[in-house]
């Protein structure tokens, strides 16, 4: 039986999630043994964009990093989707628009004018959007960057045809399992753990730091309720806004509106 083909693509992003794939080290070599890596610019010498011709190849699994920030990207993405049986996103940019989605609530033309000598040459769209705003996504992996172990679990699940064992509940669940005293309750720190998706391995609270939400909103996050608690600690409404407006702004705001 032929090995399933995998293509790994990137749009607007820092490449950190793709590097997390390399961080699998020995397991990365196992991916090469189990799948045909048909497209992976980050892993090859030749430069180039996604440069992908519709119909040129078929992917059993497309892995997409990065948000959609230009017109060209949105076209390339459609090509990838059309030629892939399954498409998953990796990381805050592809899943939630990334830090660059902060511009969705500002005026991009002003940024262009203030930062670039030839603003007209910048092709950026007014908004940075997650992959799911453009095409059907079969599975989303969160995090800035993703947790390598979760990526490996998603690939193993794809190969076995099962649901990935990746949690959608709060970071607090992981924190409590690890027996870490709550930085919010015992330290009155503005920790986003109660509204943030588990998966990072509790990096910040294990070091007595408040979670800043890099894994994005958990399923059913009650963001307004947490912000009221922080306001009770003395943080202003604007300070609370800035806590959420980071790597997953697009999805935190969407979840906040849902209540």
């Amino acid at each position: 039986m032929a090995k399933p083909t995998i293509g790994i693509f990137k749009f607007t992003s820092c490449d950190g999630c793709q590097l997390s794939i390399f961080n699998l080290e020995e397991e990365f070599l196992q991916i090469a043994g189990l799948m045909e890596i048909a497209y992976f610019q980050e892993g090859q010498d030749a430069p180039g964009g996604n440069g992908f011709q519709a119909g040129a190849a078929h992917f059993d699994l497309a892995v997409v990093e990065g948000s959609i920030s230009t017109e060209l990207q949105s076209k390339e993405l459609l090509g990838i989707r059309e030629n892939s049986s399954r498409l998953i996103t990796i990381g805050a940019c592809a899943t939630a628009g990334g830090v660059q989605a902060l511009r969705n609530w500002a005026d991009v033309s002003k940024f262009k004018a203030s930062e670039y000598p030839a603003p007209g040459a910048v092709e950026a769209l007014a908004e940075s959007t997650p992959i799911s705003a453009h095409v059907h996504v079969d599975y989303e992996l969160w995090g800035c960057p993703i947790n390598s172990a979760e990526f490996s679990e998603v690939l193993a699940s794809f190969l076995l045809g099962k649901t990935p064992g990746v949690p959608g509940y709060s970071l607090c669940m992981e924190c409590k399992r690890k027996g870490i005293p709550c930085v919010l309750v015992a330290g009155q720190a503005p920790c986003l753990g109660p509204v943030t998706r588990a998966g990072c391995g509790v990096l910040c609270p294990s070091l007595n730091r408040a979670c800043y939400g890099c894994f994005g909103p958990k399923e059913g996050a009650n963001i307004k309720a947490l912000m009221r608690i922080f306001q009770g600690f003395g943080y202003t409404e604007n300070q609370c806004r800035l806590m959420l407006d980071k790597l997953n702004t697009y999805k935190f705001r969407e979840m906040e509106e849902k209540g």
Partner: protein
Amino acid sequence: MAIKGTLKKARLEDLLAVLGKSHRIIGPKAEGGAVVMEEIGYKDIPSGVRDLQWPGGCRLLPGKDSQVFSFSPGPDSFKRFLHPPASELFAFKRNGAKIDFLPAPKIAERPMAFFTVRPCDLSALKLYDKIFLGGPVADQAYESLRRGSLVVALNCLYPGDNCFCLSMGTGPEARDGFDIQMTELEDSFLLEEGSAKGAEILEQLSLGQAGADEISAKRRRIESCKAAFKKSIAAHELPGIIYANLGHPHWDDIARRDLECGNCTQVCPTCFCSTSYDYAALGGIAAGGAVSGKRFRKWDSCFSRSFARVHSGNFRLSRKARYRHWMAHKLAYTQAQFGLSGCVGCGRCITWCPAGIDITAELEALRHV
């Protein structure tokens, strides 16, 4: 005649030394601004540490109390040791239609002695024994950890601000379910046997005589503790008040505040829900289709959306429904399932709820609003 005697406070280390000969000692330790439970030695006991707890908050206070045990229970209980947060159930190998199962490796560790179990947690432990051991099939993982364990109970002399065991009928005095019970007196601890195993431990200590004075000092201290409770719950109206109010508008009010983070369920000493999942690393998948992996169990929570996600749907979609289910399980359903209360009045869900949702106040609102 049951053994009873006093141990000078300066000799408390002797008790730990005797327990430590045969057991790992699981007890309190101050860490990260809270009193947690870990495997400890004598020096770890946060002697004289006082704490302040309020709905959604906890702080250890500077300065030392003259008493050794002046703090109320922290987020941990025996739960994380007898029902570990994550554990391997078994390994499997599948090759075509053939599946082999391999039992999880036995952990050859000494049994545990739970040091200073509070009366509320004794009730929770009784419920756990019923849940994990009382059915037609005992839970092997729990049984192997519980068997050989020792319980040293500590009578509470100061209620925490979120404690309501008195109204729940579970404290502040230990009644049964322990091997030894301790009461802190002025200069000594009164130690009383609760089982033959406990008696064996006490026989190895040189105890002072416990006479009428010590017994009446114990009584006085427990009575003054009872008079100091600030929180109570309408236990006499349970479970009827829950069943009569499943459609109450107050559930909507709770849902506005509820973070559904699951903290209450994780710190609750009677919440026992877990989920299991199969983990097959990429290295366990052979190109020919053979798979080897492991099945794990880890703590779950009815506040997680995935908890009620079943084939083709989710049967508990609203936040209100999730909170109502949890509170009803604590205050009504567990009683129907196991004949014991699912709430023991420890107050942990109140302290460790970032939103400060207070189960006693919510019940009051259901009764009166």
